[in-house]
């Protein structure tokens, strides 16, 4: 009986913890959230967090129990509610840092909405919103900025006038299901 139970609990291959250096090359899609059978933390099990509102074009979500170290290139809207270190690029899309999100990274996106913490320089081609209770430490380059009362911001703001409309728009590529691509090896760590 005991042996059988142990077999059930045999862990799947696990990605290395994020605390150390990235251990060698990782498969192209290393963003893998580990669903653990046994919880180590004191967080209540089975509690479902409300999903953030998504734009009609779909969006990828990095949940609050996920930590990513590396580079992220996104071809769809991205919602970050976990920890992120490195760089984030979503040049033609919206990047939202959720209330639990902590980003230590340089960020480039069409639009950035900060509800959590960003430490790093931000380039938002269209606009950036720093919501109440958000914290942003870094330099901002953007066309428009919205700062709510109660937001903390330390750094410089450069307003860059948007480029004139492009002459011919390129045809949109077919939608890709997994839009979060990792160019560099990344370590993923489940917090729970």
């Amino acid at each position: 009986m005991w042996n059988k139970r142990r077999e059930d609990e045999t862990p799947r291959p696990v990605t290395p913890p994020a605390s150390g250096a990235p251990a060698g090359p990782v498969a192209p899609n290393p963003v893998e959230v580990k669903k653990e059978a046994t919880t180590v933390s004191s967080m209540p099990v089975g509690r479902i967090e409300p999903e953030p509102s998504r734009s009609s074009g779909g969006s990828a979500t990095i949940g609050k129990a996920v930590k990513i170290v590396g580079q992220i290139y996104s071809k769809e809207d991205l919602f970050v509610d976990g920890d992120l270190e490195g760089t984030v690029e979503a040049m033609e899309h919206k990047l939202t840092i959720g209330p639990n999100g902590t980003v230590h990274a340089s960020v480039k996106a069409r639009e950035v909405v900060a509800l959590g913490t960003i430490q790093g320089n931000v380039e938002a081609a269209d606009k950036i919103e720093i919501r109440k209770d958000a914290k942003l430490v870094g330099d901002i380059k953007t066309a428009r900025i919205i700062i709510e009362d109660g937001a903390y911001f330390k750094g410089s703001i450069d307003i860059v006038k948007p480029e004139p409309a492009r002459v011919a728009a390129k045809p949109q590529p077919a939608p890709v299901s997994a839009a979060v691509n990792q160019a560099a090896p990344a370590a993923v760590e489940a917090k729970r």
Partner: protein
Amino acid sequence: MLTDRLKSLLRGQRETGPAGPPLGSPKTAGPPRAKSSPGKPPQVATRPSRGLEEFFSYIRGQSGLTILDLGGATQQNVSFITGLGHRIYSENFLQVLNETFEGEETGQSNPGRIDYFLRQALDYPDGHFDGVLIWDVLEYLEPALLTAVVERLRKIVRPRSYMLAFFHSDIKVEAVPVYTFRIQDVNLLHITQEGTRNPAQLFNNRSLEKLFGSFESVKFFLTRERLREVIVKV
């Protein structure tokens, strides 16, 4: 003996009397915090500001300047400064002050803490700014910290640039209103008062001239709200 006791009691009363803090000496130990009045909505007013008008008159006609705002980031100030074609640096000076000196027994006189504070709040290269909106934050600094901050400001601001600072002109007050200053126009300020706060020092014209003695010039404007608006040329 009774006479001595009476004398000491009277002396004690005089020391804790209603008079404001002595000029140029610290009033309280530790960081003075804002006291908000619960249930009381913030008081809002719009008033003309000669100091602000003077500040903008010096940078008018130029663009691409670098302005430091020590009052924290507000939508109005960011929009106004960037709308003039300048780059703005926002610094929530009072928040850093509170965080740095929270629970500090020696108040704001510990050299290590002062150094740390300067690194947190004013760590910029020499001659980096073309103007500074100081607002009223200098009133909350005790002498040692104030001297260090003014000296640092002198370094990080380009020569012949201007700084705008506000000081309460009533030097007998115990607590001063805590304001958030939002720029509405080149000569118009939208002011929100949220609670009061004990100033570390209060200044008259003479002590202000002494404070900014190493700068090129100091100009005063007195407002109806008993504020001294001071334009300092670096």
